[in-house]
Every structure is written in structure tokens, then in C-alpha cells.
């Protein structure tokens, strides 16, 4: 009981923590204020609570697939926000004049939506136990441990990023941004296939012999870049399209002619 709480909460926290750490590292690198972090965390957790308590109503929407549609929508939303983060970060680094709040708002938005997405599942899990059970203490302890491990992994990730040489941080940071964003699109597409909004098909390949999704590395890669052992053609296409779109947007930002020769 305790162990399954640890695993469950860890998995959810990990996904949000990795994105969070990446954006924090980018903020530090660009020397912009990291104060968006606090508001983002609070708003995100409030949003997760609201979502968690309304799951039954949400599930009924769209003919019984409201959960999938809303979660997919949030993940596509994060993708768009991360495209914005990439583009604005590049323009900011190149010295374009832009409102100081823009990048923090985009980053905060991404974290908030990610927290709602992951946090709501934890809330639902916890709500199952409030209905009076002896295992409550074990569940709470397990959840705290799981959250702690997830946050620690995020912290290690953050420090690994900021101790890289400045030039490297930009490259690594952007590559990770692209992969995390594409991972979101992959997961969202999978949800819509589950909801029968997108067509299902046989998978193209099966790499579970090489790297099972259930393994620790598999789970880490899933949380970070959306690793999938048995992707269908549609999922692969969505992933590649996402990579292409965000890479293209970021690349265009590096080439955008300077308006102010400041």
C-alpha cells in the first residue's frame, strides 16, 4: 500500500518536476526573475484540486471521453506554450525589446497546466482514501515519499543543467524543450486514440525487449520525452510533426531580422 502510493505519486510528480526544472534553469540562464515559480506552484495546485474534485463531471463530457479530451487539450496547450517559451527566450537572448512579463507568464502557464494535469490524478487518488480507511496513514506517508523523490530528481536535473557551461546550456536546454514538448503531443495523441477521436492502428515497432516502459529508465524517459515502446504511425507522425514545428519556430527566432539595431 505504501509502496504503490510512492510509485504513483512519484510518477506524476516526476513529469511536472522535469518540465519545471528545465524552465527554472532557462530562467536562471537568461537572468530573468524566477519569482513566477511561486505563483505557478500555488495556482497549479489549486487548479489540480478543482479538477480532481470534478472528475466525475468531466468524465461524462464528450460522450464519456471528457477525461481524455481535456487532458489531451491541456497537453497540446503545454506544447503551444513551450513553443512560445522557445521563441521568446531566443528573441530575448538576442536583445529584442519585449515586455518583461512575457517569458515568465509563458513559463508559469506551462507549469500551471502541467501541474493541473499531473496533480489532478494525485488528488483523485487521495480522495479515494478520505472515504474513511485504515490505510490513510500509509498512503499519506507513501505519497510524501513519492513526492519527495520526484522533487529530488527534479532538483538534480536542475543543478545538472545550470552547472553546464553557458553556451552548452542553451543548446541542451533547447533540445530538451523540443523533446519535452514533442512528448506532450505524443501523450495527447495517445489519449485521443483511446477516446476514439483519432484512428487506432497496429504499432510500427516494439522496443519493449530493448527498453521496457515499466523499467526505471523507461519511466524516466517517458516522463521526460514521452518514450513509447509501441508507437503507431499516427503517434510517430504527431511526434515528428511536433519536433519539426517547435524546432522550426525556434530556428526562425534565431534568424529573425533585428528590428532595433540596439
Amino acid at each position, binding site marked *: 500500500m505504501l509502496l*504503490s502510493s510512492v*510509485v*504513483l505519486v512519484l510518477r506524476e510528480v516526476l513529469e511536472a518536476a522535469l518540465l519545471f526544472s528545465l524552465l527554472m534553469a532557462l530562467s536562471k540562464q537568461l537572468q530573468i526573475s524566477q519569482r513566477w515559480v511561486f505563483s505557478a506552484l500555488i495556482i497549479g495546485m489549486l487548479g489540480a484540486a478543482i479538477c480532481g474534485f470534478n*472528475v*466525475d463531471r468531466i*468524465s461524462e463530457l464528450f460522450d*464519456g*471521453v471528457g*477525461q*481524455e479530451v481535456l487532458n489531451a487539450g491541456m497537453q497540446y496547450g503545454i506544447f503551444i506554450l513551450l513553443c512560445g517559451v522557445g521563441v521568446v527566450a531566443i528573441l530575448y537572448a538576442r536583445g529584442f525589446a519585449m515586455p518583461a512579463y512575457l517569458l515568465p507568464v509563458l513559463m508559469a502557464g506551462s507549469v500551471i497546466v502541467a501541474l493541473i494535469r499531473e496533480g489532478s*490524478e494525485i488528488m*483523485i*487518488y487521495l*480522495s*479515494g*482514501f478520505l*472515504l474513511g480507511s485504515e490505510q490513510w496513514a500509509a498512503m499519506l506517508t507513501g505519497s510524501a515519499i513519492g513526492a519527495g523523490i520526484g522533487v529530488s530528481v527534479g532538483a538534480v536535473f536542475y543543478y545538472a543543467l545550470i552547472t553546464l557551461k553557458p553556451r552548452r546550456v542553451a543548446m541542451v536546454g533547447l533540445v530538451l524543450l523540443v523533446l519535452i514538448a514533442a512528448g506532450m503531443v505524443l501523450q495527447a495523441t*495517445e489519449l485521443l*486514440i*483511446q*477516446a*476514439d477521436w483519432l484512428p*487506432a*492502428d*497496429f504499432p510500427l515497432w516494439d522496443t*519493449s525487449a530493448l527498453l*521496457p*516502459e*515499466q523499467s526505471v529508465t523507461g519511466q524516466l524517459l517517458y516522463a521526460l520525452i514521452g518514450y*513509447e*515502446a*509501441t508507437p503507431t504511425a499516427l503517434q510517430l507522425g504527431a511526434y515528428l510533426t511536433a519536433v519539426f514545428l517547435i524546432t522550426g519556430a525556434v530556428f526562425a527566432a534565431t534568424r529573425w531580422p533585428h528590428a532595433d539595431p540596439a
Partner: protein
Amino acid sequence: MKYHLLERALLLLFGIMPLAFTAHAGPPEFELEIRDHLFIPDELRIPAGQKVKLVVYNRDSTPEEFESYELNREKVIMGNSKAIIFIGPLKPGEYPFFGEFNPTTALGKVIAE
């Protein structure tokens, strides 16, 4: 010459059109129950190679999450509720699933044949 071709084309068209109005049967439905943190039945046999609609009834009062790495599906089902999950098409084989909120007891597998 042209007239004969047109005639043939129209005949072909009117021959095929009725097929377009043939009732399109939805995917086969299968039911799964969650009771006392167990999946009932714990082995679900479904036809391979086609999309299948799973209707999962959660008879417990607490929520459960139907999850499977092999099937790539995850969905929360609140207590005393049901959920619809589409799976497949699957190649013949066994595809385990579990209840993430109670992973030691809620275990099962889909057998596609």
C-alpha cells in the same frame, strides 16, 4: 462510344452507392468490472486485429485507474461509475493491465485471439 462509356459509369456508380449506405457496425463491446479492488474477469478474450470497446464498471466506492503499458491506455474511473476505453487493433497475444490505485490486487490481461 462516349454514350456507352457514360452508361457503364452510371451503372457502376448506382451499383456501388447502396454499399455506402450499409449500416456501419460499431466495434464489439466487452465489459469489465472492478469489485473489491479486483478486475472481473481477470482474463478478457477479445478478437485480434480490430478495435474493441471496453466498458469498465467500477462497483467499488473508491476510484480506480485502469492502466496498461502494453495497451497504452490509462483512465481514471470514479467510484460507482463506468468508463469507456477503446483498445486495439491488437496482434494476437496477451496484454496485461492493472489498477494503478491498487496494483497488487487489481490485475488482469487481455487475450487477443
